[in-house]
């Protein structure tokens, strides 16, 4: 007989493992892990910073919980959208680090940089996903949105998995949604 706490933990783990309550809308670990690994590589290589993954959440639409969001689409064998969201402070810290000078306002330099970050993040994940799917995946041109007066909904992509991270430069969030999340199996690690 399991205790109530054990049941709650079991339920939570099951939710995380499938990233949803409906198997048709689940996002599997083999899809998500390449984005996590790519984020680790991006921060280690470009910023010499480790990152720490917090607990993932599920969202049914993309809402702006942070100040700047960069989005990129994936097409071909894998159809979906990836986003990186940053508080202004994190984005300024990251760009200041790369340019070797203090950048204190969000200008075209910062917007350009956050677009490149999501491009590199998606590129790294794409390379890993290609090995699993064994078919080409293409990337769109990144889009950057600043502000918090929007919401993006995709009827065909019912769930966004949201993974918050912390780094030496501040917090950020990666969100991923896919059109056909059951194309590969696995368990979220």
């Amino acid at each position, binding site marked *: 007989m399991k205790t109530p706490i054990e049941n709650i933990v079991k339920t939570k783990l099951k939710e995380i493992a499938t990233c949803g309550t409906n198997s048709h809308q689940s996002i599997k670990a083999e899809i998500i892990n390449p984005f996590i690994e790519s984020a680790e590589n991006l921060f280690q*290589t470009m910023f010499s910073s480790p990152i720490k993954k917090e607990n993932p959440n599920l969202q049914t639409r993309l809402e702006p919980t942070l100040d700047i969001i960069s989005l990129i689409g994936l097409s071909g064998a894998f159809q979906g959208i990836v986003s990186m969201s940053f508080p202004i402070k994190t984005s300024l810290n990251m760009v200041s680090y790369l340019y070797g000078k203090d950048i204190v306002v969000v200008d075209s330099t910062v917007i*350009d940089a956050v677009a490149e970050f999501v*491009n590199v993040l998606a590129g790294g994940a794409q390379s890993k996903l290609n090995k699993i799917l064994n078919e080409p995946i293409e990337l769109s041109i990144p889009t950057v949105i600043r502000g918090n007066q929007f919401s993006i909904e995709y009827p065909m992509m019912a769930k966004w998995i949201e993974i918050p991270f912390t780094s030496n430069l501040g917090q950020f969030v990666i969100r991923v949604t896919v059109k056909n999340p059951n194309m590969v199996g696995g368990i979220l690690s």
Partner: protein
Amino acid sequence: MKALVVDDSALARNIIASTLEEVGITEVDLAKDGTESIELVQSNRYDIIFMDWNMPVMQGIEAVKEIRHQGITTPIIMVTGLGDEFHVKEAIGAGVNNYLIKPFKAETAIEKIKETLKTVEV
């Protein structure tokens, strides 16, 4: 020596230009997409070209094909986040000489630059 760096990201152009400085290449032209790069290679002689893949207006791979179609043999390093074998094979087939995957450490880029220029000298 003179280099051309083609990338829609100012940050990426800046990083590559800084890396080039480290190997003594200070004469660097910059282009934001494939179309601009083709215009520049028609009126300049470069010793090495750095080409991003994913760009608006004209993708890097199309620019590489056009540059080679024009008979320009300048060594090209594809610099992209797309590091899978499908894209690498396509790039090599289009006439790319070397491949640098983003994100990269400066030392990796320097190694690729030296490797590429050495191959051309031979």
